């Protein structure tokens, strides 16, 4: 923990970082702990959605066909479903291959 001096100079973090970068992290990321002062999560969600309207124009990007982050499993539930479907198909295929191999292996074992 004494390697701080080896870090390059900060790039935009701290005072100079743009507000969207900071809000994105302190509101959306970080550890969520229910404190004594309970902020209704619904309220936070509303706020987050409102901020998203200001911060991220996801729809605009989609309009222009830039939606590749949607196929990232860590980002969208739709992509997670696709991932599962793909994995299922892959497993079925492997099973079929194994079943084909099985008779062959059985014969080999009988041979000696």
């Amino acid at each position: 923990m004494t390697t701080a001096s080896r870090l390059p100079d900060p790039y935009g973090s701290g005072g100079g970082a743009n507000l969207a970068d900071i809000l994105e992290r302190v509101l959306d990321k970080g550890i969520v702990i229910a404190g004594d002062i309970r902020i209704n999560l619904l309220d936070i969600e509303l706020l987050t959605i409102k901020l998203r309207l200001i911060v991220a124009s996801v729809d605009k990007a989609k309009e222009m066909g830039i939606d590749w982050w949607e196929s990232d499993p860590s980002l969208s539930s739709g992509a997670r479903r696709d991932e599962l479907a793909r994995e299922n198909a892959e497993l079925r295929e492997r099973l079929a291959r194994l079943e084909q191999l099985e008779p062959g292996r059985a014969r080999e074992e009988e041979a000696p």
Partner: protein
Amino acid sequence: MTGLRYVYAVCRPFDAPLQVQLTGVGGAPVKMLAHHGLVAVVSPVPEGDFAEAPLREHLEDLDWLGATARAHQQVVDALTAVTTPLPLRLATVFRDDSGVRVMIESGEEAFRRTLDRLDGRVEWGVKVYVEGGEEQPEAAALAAKPASGRDYLRQRRNRAQEREDKWRAAERFATRLHGTLAAHAEESRLHAPQNSPLTRGSGHNVLNAAYLVPRAHSEEFVELVDHTKDEEPGMRVELTGPWAAYSFVDPEGTGAGDAGGREDTSGEVV
């Protein structure tokens, strides 16, 4: 210390000196509350601002929110220079010190696990912007006046084609860059692109990613990003950091950082 307790982060005890007189939200002095071998970094905040009703009201005020977010980030930043903090989400508030201790106790195991996973690592943010990605009506108006209806349609088609080519090139560049950077990072997260008056500079954000990189490898990572900067004309690469590992407090695959706007509570430790 009177008032409520605002908790910025949880970390392991550290010897390195912090910035002298570190101040937190509202300019209050920050203190370390050690308990069970962990440290909660806290400062007092007034009930008048942080009790439920006023806090809810404040959170809707972008100026207040901005100032609080910056104060929160400044404390986490100062910690990141000397240790590996687990940053808490904005406005995690307790009645008193004993409330903070109870929080540490009930989250102890998860804190230690996460601290072990993130120890010595920092987060770098990389964004790619397509310069001049916006519609430019002046440019269209400047184009030669079409001689006929057919010319007009051809010009329109060409412009649409150019735009499409540009976005396709942007997508290719962003995908390739992300692949390269992810290969040099321990973990990566793709965030929804940003675009707003809050964003400095021009252009349309097409990649907004975070990379978890060991401190010791940060210099190489920064150089790697620097090398890509002039690689593709019309693309701007922006690097921010080193941040505390905000985007990585939840293990991969828990759905944190969802672009769908859903509140994900899988990372809750309490």
